[in-house]
């Protein structure tokens, strides 16, 4: 199963969020599983159209995902997925 890591800032809203294995063949499926485990989680990462939020990044390995609209990027059991916040603000 893909291994998923998170920015620590998400733990402020989901204290039980820990990195680890999350099943899914695409980034969307990984997010859906995280939503099932932590209700409300998806709304922090994607908007109601399913689009990745402007100031959120998801990497598969070293590469940012390509499909920010539908999160259709494939992931394999060997992949490491990072869910991060973009650097912004003041």
């Amino acid at each position, binding site marked *: 199963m893909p291994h998923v890591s998170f920015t620590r*800032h*998400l733990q402020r*809203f989901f204290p039980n969020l820990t990195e680890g294995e999350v099943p899914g063949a695409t980034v969307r499926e990984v997010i859906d599983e995280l939503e099932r485990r932590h209700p*409300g989680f998806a*709304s*922090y*990462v994607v*908007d*109601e*159209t399913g*689009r990745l*939020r*402007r*100031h*959120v990044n998801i990497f598969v390995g070293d590469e940012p995902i390509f499909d920010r609209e539908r999160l259709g990027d494939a992931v394999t059991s060997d992949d490491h997925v990072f869910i991060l*916040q*973009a650097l*912004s*603000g003041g």
Partner: protein
Amino acid sequence: MSNQILLGTRKGTIIFDRKADGWKPRPIAHAGLSISYAARDPRDGTIWVAMDHAHWGPKLSRSRDDGASWENLTQIAYPKGARFIEQHLPTPGEDASTRPQSYKEASLLKVWVLAFGGKDQRGTIHAGTLPGGLFTSHDGGDTWELNRPLWNHESRGGDLFVGDATSRNDWGGTPAAMAYGEFVPGIHSIVVDPRDSNHIFVAVSCAGVLETKDGGKTWQGRNRGMLNDYLPNPEAEWGHDPHFVTQCTTQPDYLWQQNHTGVFMSENGAETWKRVSHPEVAVHFGFPIAVDERDGRRAWVVPAKGDDERMAVGGGLFVARTEDGGASWQTFRKGLPQEHAYDVVYRHALDARGDSVCFGSTTGNVYLSDDRGETWCCLGTHFPPVHSVRFA
């Protein structure tokens, strides 16, 4: 008299309590998060906060124990198929009329304002959003529904859930949306008539004021008498830029509007508006406006030098008050900084309750008057930029 003030600030929620030795702020709540609006539901005491997460999307938070603990809620969400006609900022050299009409799927950018239903509608809460949605909850905020008659209004192109536009779109974008990278309309004012909870006004930047008398099933524009100095036809039905609209709770036919093009008031429930600006005392441009809950002819504004500078007029901060429906205005400066003041007060950052008036500025200064705005004391000068001020 109110004993509590709620501030929504760029860096969190601040609650002031009136103590024997003066107003005292509590430690900041929602630390680090931008709060666009904070208010207390007068029916059940719940404190509501609209959080404007930069990264994680707009969210609501509520406290049912006077701010001791907070509960984050599932976000307000546009239903699938909610579309709007895209607006574009004018581009030099481009003929906008040749640009093909395009549609965009709506997603929530900001919860701009919250309003509470009448005493007969316990659990009913309204939210105004970018991009131009009115959402209503009938279960105390657990679930929210988009008001489709307003979203599908003929002034927005009709029902875009079912197909292409059937009428012209007269709702323009607001520059306040540009912080979110989009040029979309926004609903920042929701007024529920205390005599009839199904009688509601909303104000839209940039379109104008709309009214429903049937609980949101049908809506009509209420902009007669409005003047837009930026349009070829200043009396056009749409295209107005209300900055904030409010209503006298005991004399609800009195409505007040601080607009981009001046101060306006209505004595007949928005059937007609009249401009009551007095530029000779700098009462014209600004963002917030408050009306006395006991006397619909008494109102306050905090004018700004505008619209090119948008800061305190002449480097001195003052509040203007009318007692005669805008026929004349008095300005009050005692207790407010009179040199090197560059404050501007946002649309939700002025409130009045009884003899008390309070406002907060973008430079983090908060001032309170207990004599109807005539003299002021400073509640602090180092707060984050203030987005909203509401007596609780």
